[in-house]
């Protein structure tokens, strides 16, 4: 079954495309995770962003940001993955937490800081989307199985028509990456590729883009 997606009432949500996840000197690389598999999302995300600008689809960038002393880290930081604290993952004000320079954010974009996997939990995202009459969300970024999937589950449950872009997401583990897409497609979202999104938005990019 095909689920239609136009550019009307649509937003692009770009999840956590930050130095900490995408750069070889970032905190995920320091933890020994395959950061290249996250960086692999970058070309697809850049094409989606370029397409969104052409189609005048608003762009929301989420950033994973912790307090320098991790007092907002909670169970995930203190008990499940304490090594994130050791490498100072995405600490506020640091290079690690900045959105990667390839992403070319613009002042008119909205940036949503979060300190949990879901971009909806304890953030202002939902109010921005409702205020702008957004009904459809296209989600891309990293990591597929954790912050992208948690955000997609939340968007779908809140009755945003939710679309995930398989060639603009990245995960450090291939099996988790592939199965995450399957789980999202099963009950939460339609999974499509960058070209399909651009077609739905009615935009064409030059080859250079």
């Amino acid at each position: 079954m095909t689920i239609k997606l136009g550019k009307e009432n649509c937003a692009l949500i770009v999840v956590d495309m930050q130095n900490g996840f995408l750069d070889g000197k970032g905190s995920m690389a320091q933890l020994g995770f395959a950061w290249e598999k996250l960086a692999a999302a970058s070309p697809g995300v850049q094409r989606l962003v370029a397409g969104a600008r052409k189609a005048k689809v608003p762009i929301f960038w989420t950033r994973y940001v912790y307090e320098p002393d991790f007092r907002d880290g909670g169970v995930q930081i203190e008990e499940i993955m304490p090594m994130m604290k050791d490498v100072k993952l995405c600490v506020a004000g640091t290079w690690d937490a900045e959105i990667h320079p390839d992403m070319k954010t613009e002042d008119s974009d909205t940036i949503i800081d979060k300190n949990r996997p879901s971009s909806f939990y304890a953030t202002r995202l939902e109010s921005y989307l409702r205020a702008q009459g957004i009904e459809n969300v296209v989600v891309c970024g990293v990591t597929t199985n954790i912050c992208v999937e948690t955000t997609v589950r939340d968007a779908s449950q809140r009755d945003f028509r939710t679309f995930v872009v398989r060639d603009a997401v990245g995960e450090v583990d291939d099996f988790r990456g592939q199965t995450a897409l399957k789980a999202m497609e099963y009950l939460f979202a339609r999974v499509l590729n960058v070209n399909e999104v651009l077609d739905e938005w009615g935009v064409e990019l030059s080859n250079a883009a």
Partner: protein
Amino acid sequence: MTMEFGRDKTALVVVDMQNSYCRAGGRIEKLGFPFERLAAAEPGCIRLVAAARKAGVPVIYTQYVYQPDFKDGGFIVNEIMPALKDVGLCALGSWDAEILETLAPGPNDAVIQKNRPSAFYSTQLESVLAAMKIKNLVFCGVTTNMCVETTVRDACQRDFRCFVVSDAVGEIDDDRAEVALMTMGFFFARVLTADEVFESWKVPLSNVA
């Protein structure tokens, strides 16, 4: 480091153990899914509930319930899996929506009705847990990758310490079941067996075998 817990400030959450998912004649069987794989969670859930009663650990049940005309179905029911509506899955007041007789809630147990995968979204669960001063949640039920996992993601983000019982959950696909446990163990929970729960609660195995 292993995340530990005991009886104190702990609740058992039994997710969606309803006729629909676990019984022949239930709507999941009507949809052609192997309900036996979900019913496989039943013995483990029964043992956990028995142990919780002995340990004085409160038991909380969740129940997936839709309005009979599915006006609360939204994106998931209307666009992703319309078959749920066609078969009348978990319609309010139906046998399909009832919790299994073998796991029937007692008069003092909290039963949380929900119409989305997460037991936290638009329900009373969080206020019930806050009022009871619960910090640790032990999860069993169905389905591992959908309602259990969505609820565990939400619980962990809210800083409940989450424990998922691998031999008291059920899923219809093997790969999604495997990745669900892997994902929860990666960043949202400690995955453990029912016997380990009994040990933590200091309930002799002979009492729950």
